[in-house]
């Protein structure tokens, strides 16, 4: 089916990632918006669509979209998407292609709060939480992924050492990314992961993503507008989203069905729209909040069969030099996880397709894919297939 026009990513930006005690979430968001627009060479006056991720509603009683419409200079917006793990960028591309809007900015920034258990204060009486909430049992995100990992290892005969391989290749990529948080600490081994302190068994510290501050933004527009901007445009060939369950409450049995769940559906749709074969992907950014996640991403997205994700990693396909270098920036495990990193994998794929990645550049990268997921283990998914012009 011919598109009315073609959407492209024209600008990306990441703020400094790490501990940023002197910053606010708002200032990181504004820096990211300005930075990505400057990267594109598009003035703020042209923005008519926004995708604010979490922590971006700064005026009580006013939605984030309304606040930012006014903050950015009383902008009449034509697209008001929400983000998280959804395929907001996929829908932004459809909106641009069909004339709903011209320039869309997705942005995020967070400073001064923690996502993990360190961020939970000791109360002076028992807090009351929603009825079936996992908080009553002392569970949190890491626990959920640990339960997922334990069940997965049981069903498919996979070991913790197999999971650890993900942390090893991802850290190596971080050592080649001067902006990554963990790169300067150097390479790690499987033994390092197995010997790091346990957080929620079977997951140890080095199986877990970082928990830091930071911001980022992505600018999308039409290919015509992108061609006259500063950087080489990256085409959005197709994208899709999917969800199948609630927020870490219900567990559906089986957890690993042959036919897959949300990630499978979003991936199949995205590749069908893009009209390319997933075997042709040169570089991937796959959501890696924990080592188990990357392995499940590869299976659900159809890069390997169910139960064979760890083998795929061990065969070296995800490493630089492999057939599909993955998370070349160091991912959420070793580059940055600032709370809602739904756009970070897309940004790294864009930089790869532009050829901006220096030591970690994938030679001649032409086709890339990003996966964001969350809101339950693989509960909500967004997939974006991108290409050089």
């Amino acid at each position, binding site marked *: 089916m011919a598109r009315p026009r073609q959407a492209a990513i024209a600008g990306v930006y990441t703020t400094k990632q790490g501990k940023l005690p002197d910053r606010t979430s708002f200032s990181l968001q504004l820096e990211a918006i300005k930075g990505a627009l400057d990267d594109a060479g598009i003035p703020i006056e042209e923005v008519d669509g926004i995708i604010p991720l979490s922590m971006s509603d700064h005026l009580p009683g006013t939605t984030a979209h309304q606040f930012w419409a006014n903050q950015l200079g009383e902008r009449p917006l034509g697209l008001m998407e929400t983000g998280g793990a959804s395929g907001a960028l996929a829908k932004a591309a459809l909106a641009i292609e069909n004339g709903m809007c011209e320039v869309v900015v997705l942005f995020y920034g967070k400073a001064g709060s923690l996502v993990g258990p360190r961020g939970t204060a000791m109360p002076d*009486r028992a807090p*009351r*939480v929603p*009825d079936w909430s996992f908080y009553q049992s*002392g*569970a949190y995100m890491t626990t959920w992924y640990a*339960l997922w990992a*334990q069940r997965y290892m049981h069903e498919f005969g996979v070991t913790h050492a197999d999971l650890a391989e993900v942390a090893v290749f991802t850290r190596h990529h971080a050592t080649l990314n001067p902006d990554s948080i963990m790169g300067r600490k150097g390479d790690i081994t499987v033994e390092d992961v197995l010997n790091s302190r346990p957080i*929620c068994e079977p997951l140890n510290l080095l199986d877990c993503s970082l928990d830091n501050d930071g911001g980022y933004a992505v600018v999308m527009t039409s290919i015509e507008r992108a061609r006259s901007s500063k950087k080489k445009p990256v085409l959005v060939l197709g994208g899709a989203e999917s969800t199948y369950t609630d927020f870490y409450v219900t567990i559906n049995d089986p957890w690993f069905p042959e036919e897959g769940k949300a990630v499978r559906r979003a991936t199949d749709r995205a590749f069908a729209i893009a009209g390319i074969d997933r075997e042709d992907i040169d570089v991937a950014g796959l959501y890696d909040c924990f080592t188990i996640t990357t392995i499940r991403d590869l299976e659900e997205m159809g890069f390997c069969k169910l139960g064979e994700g760890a083998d795929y990693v061990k065969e070296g396909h995800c490493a630089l030099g492999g057939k599909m270098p993955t998370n070349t920036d160091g991912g959420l495990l070793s580059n940055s996880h600032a709370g809602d990193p739904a756009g970070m994998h897309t940004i790294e794929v864009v930089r790869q397709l532009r050829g901006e990645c220096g030591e970690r550049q994938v030679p001649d990268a032409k086709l890339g894919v990003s996966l964001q997921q969350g809101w339950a283990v693989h509960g909500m998914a967004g997939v974006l297939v991108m290409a050089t012009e």
Partner: protein
Amino acid sequence: MTYLKPLPQIEPRNKEFWDGLAAGEFRVPKCDNCGHYNWVPYPACRSCLSEAQTWTPVSRDATVWSFSLVHRGPGAFNDDVPYAVVLAKLAEEPRSCIVLGNTTGIAPEDLYIGMPLRIVFEEIPGEDVTVFRFAAADAAEPDDADAALSAENQPATVA
């Protein structure tokens, strides 16, 4: 000792469940139309979409479906590390009911997937809530186990 871990907001729509725990029952919505149990409770049966469901006491027999030993706990839970969080599959069929919770009286190294469990109850001192825990099925006669837990009268999240 004051209980400082999160407890449920008890509301009209879920009161039957928490009243059940206080009465020594684990009640799950059972569909009046197709007979399937639904966990977590939803407004309609996930299998046939009937809104007619009845809170029904289940057998309290379950097996470990997955588990994690937590070494870094949020808030008051950090005093109990390491503690176990389990996903327990209730014996009731055909729709699986996978219930998340803590264990009591089970040594961490004894946990395994498929381990038989039994749901037991624990009154929270100073609060209007009775909670459930998973005990090893062969630990004791169920009623004795329940009585022992009440007598101990203390948080029992430590595995």
